[in-house]
């Protein structure tokens, strides 16, 4: 099932002046084989995928960029592993040199146990990269104030976490995510924490504009099947958000009317 076959209209997903067909962005980390990655890309229908820079490994086999080029996807370089604004800024510039794109998924993390963003460093790096002409998509905490600050310095989107990277813990604070969505004037993309399809659906139901997902797909028992599942979940959640959920109620409300209910009382003897 794809939204193309569903008779509903949706607004385009616009990020940084670009219109994306898919609201699912795929992280390429964690796939054991490049062939599986390529199949997962096709299953997600993602057109934007993340990529990292690491020291050249002369023993590496197969070209990641060739595989991604064959899939026809655009690259979103990340600054994963950077702990300071300076490292992240230099890494973004290296990625611009390597991949010829000024888009960057900005990550500045605080420690290797939680991989949670270091807010002050993140904001510093975001500001510097925006000033240098980058289209900055920051991986951020689920903090509405930090999200606003990132938007204020000119980030093209904000990408709050649902829970720590690779934890698969889903969306731990849906209220904060709703608060971010409520006031954001740039796209909100859930980044990190998705464990399975329902987490991605919830993100979209809460009003996120997109979902970025890596580990949940790459580390699933069957990555390609999970890629299909999460793609469908993103579409389902988007549709549900647009459709408008019913309010939660403490007590039941009959869906069958009481009017015209048959009187089946036996005669009094």
């Amino acid at each position: 099932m794809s939204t193309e076959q569903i008779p509903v209209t949706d607004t385009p997903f616009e990020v940084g002046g670009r219109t994306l067909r898919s609201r699912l962005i795929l992280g390429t980390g964690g796939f054991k084989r490049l062939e599986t990655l390529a199949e997962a890309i096709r299953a997600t229908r993602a057109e934007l995928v993340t990529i990292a820079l690491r020291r050249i490994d002369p023993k590496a086999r197969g070209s990641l960029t060739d595989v991604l080029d064959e899939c026809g996807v655009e690259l979103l370089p990340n600054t994963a592993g950077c702990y300071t604004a300076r490292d992240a800024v230099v890494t973004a510039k290296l990625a611009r040199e390597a991949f010829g794109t000024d888009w960057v998924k900005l990550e500045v993390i605080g420690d290797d146990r939680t991989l949670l963003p270091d807010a002050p460093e993140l904001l510093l790096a975001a500001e510097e990269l925006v000033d240098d002409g980058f289209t900055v998509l920051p991986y951020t905490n689920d903090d509405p104030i930090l999200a606003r600050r990132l938007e204020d310095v000119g980030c093209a989107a904000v990408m709050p976490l649902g829970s720590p990277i690779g934890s698969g813990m889903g969306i731990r604070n849906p209220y904060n995510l709703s608060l971010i969505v409520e006031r954001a004037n740039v796209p909100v993309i859930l980044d990190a924490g998705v464990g399975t399809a329902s987490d991605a659906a919830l993100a979209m139901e809460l009003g996120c504009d997109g979902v970025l997902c890596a580990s949940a797909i790459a580390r699933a028992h069957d990555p390609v099947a999970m890629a299909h599942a999460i793609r469908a979940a993103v579409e389902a959640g988007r549709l549900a958000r647009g459709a408008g959920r019913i309010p939660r109620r403490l007590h039941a409300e009959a869906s069958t009317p009481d009017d015209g209910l048959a009187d089946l009382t036996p005669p009094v003897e």
Partner: protein
Amino acid sequence: MIFVNGEPRERTGATIAELLSDLGVEARARGVAVAVDGEVVPRAEWPARRVNDGERVEALSAMQGG
């Protein structure tokens, strides 16, 4: 003595392009970037930029990552 990706090498005076060749990478390869002592060296400078004694070269390429 210079350092390439953390390894000491007796290649003082070599160009960036030559060092990339040592690593089996073509200088025009997409997805490759180089920093010397923490500063980006633009691709256009790789053929001429020589690495001085003690400088640290980071030669990077595309890697899977979320």
